[in-house]
């Protein structure tokens, strides 16, 4: 059974089909890089995978279950465009809150552990609104990994990250893959993504233009997929 299955998904905004019969899958322990130009439908697809939005037609299955099932959500981690933590709470309060919502046995201990792993232990009681951009991003990474999700859905995870946050995220993603987790990430940073990816899917105007294993040639020349299968290919 694939960890992530997307079966004939359509999504309409009014009459406009943002996604057209998208079929993808990502096996357990694989990393699928979702690439495509702006407006290709990457974020829409990831939001449907995460259960934030329902498809017009088709279905998504995470470990064989719909993404809105409570048990499925417990096994998913998501990093979107926003950091998804509260400015009015401290770093520790934020992570403890999400630890409680995810039903972790000892939310405070898990929160402290992830603050340590992301280099935020020193500022654990500081309010997020007082954090630098890089610190906020590392806290967002900690929130997504806190409950040890089996599937990580990442929307442009490297965009606007500072060097330290990129290093933290790359290390955590490599560890997650080594531990058999599944990663689906949309990205414009082809070099970083293709270093990590085992599979690549190119979205073009809401349709899958290419879906297959990442080859050594792709890693060597990140523009290759666009050149062969993209609009100009």
């Amino acid at each position, binding site marked *: 059974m694939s960890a992530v299955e997307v079966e004939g998904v359509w999504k309409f905004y009014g009459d406009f089909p943002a996604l057209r019969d998208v079929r993808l899958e990502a096996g357990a322990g694989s990393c699928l890089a979702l690439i495509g130009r702006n407006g290709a439908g990457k974020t829409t697809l990831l939001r449907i995978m*995460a259960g934030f939005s329902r498809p017009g037609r088709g279905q998504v299955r995470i470990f064989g279950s719909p993404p809105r099932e409570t*048990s499925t959500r*417990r096994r998913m981690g998501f990093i979107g465009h926003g950091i998804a933590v*509260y400015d*009015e*709470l401290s770093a520790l309060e934020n992570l403890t809150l999400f630890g409680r919502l995810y*039903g972790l046995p000892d939310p405070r201990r898990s929160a402290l552990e992830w603050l340590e792993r992301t280099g935020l232990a020193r500022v654990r009681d500081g*309010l997020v609104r007082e954090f630098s951009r890089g610190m906020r991003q590392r806290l967002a990474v900690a*929130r997504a990994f806190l409950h040890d999700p089996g599937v990580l859905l990442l929307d442009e995870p490297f965009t606007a990250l500072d060097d330290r946050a990129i290093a933290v995220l790359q290390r955590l993603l490599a560890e997650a893959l080594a531990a058999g987790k599944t990663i689906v990430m949309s990205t414009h940073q082809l070099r970083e993504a293709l270093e990590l990816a085992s599979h690549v899917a190119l979205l073009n105007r809401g349709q899958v233009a290419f879906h297959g294993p990442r080859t050594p040639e792709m890693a060597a020349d990140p523009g290759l997929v666009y050149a062969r299968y993209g609009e100009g290919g």
Partner: protein
Amino acid sequence: MNFARLVFIVAAKDLRAELRTKEAVNAALAFALVILLLFSFAFDPSAETTRDIAGGLLWIVFAFAGVLVLNRSFARELANDCLDALIAAPVPAAALFLGKVLANYFLVLAVELVSLPVFGVFYNVPWTSRFWQLMLVVALGTWGLAVIGTVFSALTVNIRLREVMLPLLIYPIMIPALMGAMQLTSDLVVGKPIGPENVAWLKMLAGFDVIYTAVSLLLVETVLVG
């Protein structure tokens, strides 16, 4: 995890965030006090007039001040895309909704409980003569306001003019509850207890709360996820 515990976690989070900034509560409280003050200066009502308008005046103030709290309920989640994180968490939408209702309920109730003595002083009304019955009416009316306000706060959260849309949507729906609360409050502040003459208003108020809470709990998953 225990449903009630999840409700409590969400409510505690909202209350803690609000108490750190006091944005909504301060605005609502200032609004309520200014309106009470302005009305008292503008009309200089006699004791008899005050008895007639007390319920209406109080509940109009409560409803308008309450909207300032309710508008922030889901708008608070927009910053940093926190709503995504809440929706992604393994929390039933009903628990998320009830947690937010509970937080809003306590915040609006706090504004009302500060406004009531101020009303008593400015309008020279011995509003405590039927204190516990009045508290029952305030509690029921506020619950209805919190439920309707929270569900429409979720519905309008992504609308650009949500501050305008929320009152436009909730006041027409609130009319039965507001009518009941106004009528009962007018009676209670002049010492007339809840009895056979006006108990129907109390039943309507309670019925409104039960029906709209149930309907909101059924619809909230669709409201949040579509």
